[in-house]
């Protein structure tokens, strides 16, 4: 769900190298599920690998809440930080660029180049801010489907995503069954439990109660830095785990003695404050409000309150992966999706990986996760 630092890379293949992003611009109005609309739409995206002549090898990767379209590689030779799933995507890697044409777009409502609350409303010449229509995961996926139309891709070989990306993946499988060949949803759920909503709302309240939020109308370059960074610090804790934090920080103290009573004293404090500060320089506060609300409202359960009614539409083969130490989207919520699929006679697998990095486990390079993704994508197709 974030850009936490990557574990030591296990060299499993080559690199995609220097990559660039592109913009898909639709001049037609985009209609949201909520009834709102915007006059035009931009999605920023990156691709890796080559689309084959029959356009049958496309893999769509859906990013998490604060991720973006930059999945692998670097944008210039000077850039040290690679895309957020660099260990997973590349020549010879589990999502192999020698075989697949991989696409990832910044979500609708995002702030990394796609249209979102931070974008200029052509009707007013000012930022949308809170005039941006209410957003859903369904809207994000609808916008991605428009991108695929533009690229001339009728059917995806696979859709893959973790966390919010996992929810988009499940949305793809249920809303566009004809366009999905297979799917992999990691560290996800069919809907937020009370705890996840509670954390999101606490984050939103931190932003909204910051005087610099100004009812969402903060001027360019002056966002509610305090509120957004506190929201990020708290959310970041939910992406980790007790055991993971203990191993990484324990009660270690920084080098300098704290001068003031409430200065940074423990390393974990310093780490989280840094995470908060780094976040505000790259993420927009209103976007954070919109995206977290879209997640809270996401619910795959049908009108009668069962998953089975909605998942009946799925035709693709699927894999859902839970992580034992994920307490934000616990294994149970991942399992439930597969249990419903199996009740319905769908082709679906559930795997629970024992990793101690919490919710963010799917962003960490591990031989088990790599083998799993590799095996699923290379699996024998049943008759």
């Amino acid at each position, binding site marked *: 769900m974030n850009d936490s630092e990557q574990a030591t890379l296990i060299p499993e293949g080559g690199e995609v190298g220097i990559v660039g992003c592109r913009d898909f611009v639709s001049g037609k109005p985009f209609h949201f599920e909520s009834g709102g609309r915007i006059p035009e739409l931009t999605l920023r995206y990156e691709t890796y690998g080559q689309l084959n002549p029959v356009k049958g090898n496309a893999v769509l990767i859906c990013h998490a809440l604060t991720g973006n379209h930059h999945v692998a590689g670097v944008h210039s030779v000077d850039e040290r930080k690679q895309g957020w799933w660099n260990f997973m995507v590349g020549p010879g890697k589990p999502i192999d660029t020698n075989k697949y044409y991989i696409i990832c777009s910044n979500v609708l409502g995002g702030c990394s180049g796609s249209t979102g609350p931070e974008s200029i409303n052509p009707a007013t010449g000012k930022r949308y801010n809170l005039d941006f229509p209410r957003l859903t995961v369904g809207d994000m996926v609808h916008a991605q489907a428009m991108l695929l139309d533009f690229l001339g891709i009728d059917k995806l070989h696979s859709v893959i995503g973790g966390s919010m990306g996992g929810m988009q993946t499940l949305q793809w499988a249920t809303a566009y069954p004809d366009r999905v060949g297979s799917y992999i949803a990691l560290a996800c759920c069919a809907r937020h439990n009370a705890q996840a909503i509670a954390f999101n709302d606490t984050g939103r309240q931190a932003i909204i109660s910051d005087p610099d939020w100004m009812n969402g109308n903060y001027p360019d370059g002056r966002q509610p830095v305090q509120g957004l960074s506190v929201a990020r610090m708290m959310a970041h804790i939910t992406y980790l785990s007790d055991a993971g934090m203990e191993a990484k920080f324990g009660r270690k103290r920084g080098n300098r003695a704290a001068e003031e009573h409430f200065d940074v004293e423990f390393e974990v404090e310093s780490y989280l404050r840094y995470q908060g500060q780094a976040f505000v320089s790259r993420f927009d506060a209103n976007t954070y409000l919109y995206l977290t609300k879209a997640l809270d409202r996401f619910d795959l359960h049908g009108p009668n309150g069962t998953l089975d009614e909605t998942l009946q539409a799925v035709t693709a083969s699927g894999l859902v992966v839970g992580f034992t130490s994920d307490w934000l989207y616990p294994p149970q919520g991942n399992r439930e999706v*597969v249990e419903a699929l199996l009740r319905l006679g769908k082709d679906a*697998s559930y795997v629970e990986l*024992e990793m101690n990095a919490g919710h963010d486990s799917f962003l960490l390079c591990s031989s088990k996760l790599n083998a799993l993704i590799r095996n699923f994508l290379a699996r024998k197709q*049943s008759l």
Partner: protein
Amino acid sequence: MSLGSKKRQVDFQVIARWVRPGERVLDLGCGRGVLLEYLQRVKSVYAVGVDIELDKILSCIKRGVSAYHGDVKPILSRFEENSFDRVIFSRSVELLEDPDNILAEGLRVGKQVTVGFVNHGFWKNRWDYFTRGRQALNEVYPKSWYEMHPANPFSVAEFEAFCRIREIKVNDRVYLCGNWRDECRYLPNLLTGYAIYDLSK
């Protein structure tokens, strides 16, 4: 061909005999998914495997067999009565902690249940114990106790008695000799190496 794969083939063929094309099959303790892959191929079944070991599940996925990584008991409780045409326990009942209830659950979820097990009453097992005072080490239990032995082995006679007490209907039974190939016709509790039962409520 190794003895292991020969063993596998025979009980696959027996189980496949009882499975009708296109059925819904749930294999509890599915291992690497070899049986289900075979049933998918020869009977075009809808197959789901359950296993607790990640490595096994990874193999199932590679084979294109739907697999659920987890304990047998909780997943059974997620399914309605008669959700599957057949529930298979192939060499897994002797590993269960609570075989009585799990078999009852299997019979609730499946219209029919297949149980395959090594006969603990096989004469060579008795011989090993009585003459040497040691756990069986022979063609039906090829590994020594410290490598792998089922926690709760049982005999053909014990399983027959269990089915009677629980009023489980035995539709068919196949007894294989210690060579895992020929059918065993007499004194099954003494001469059977491997037994396969077709059960229903």
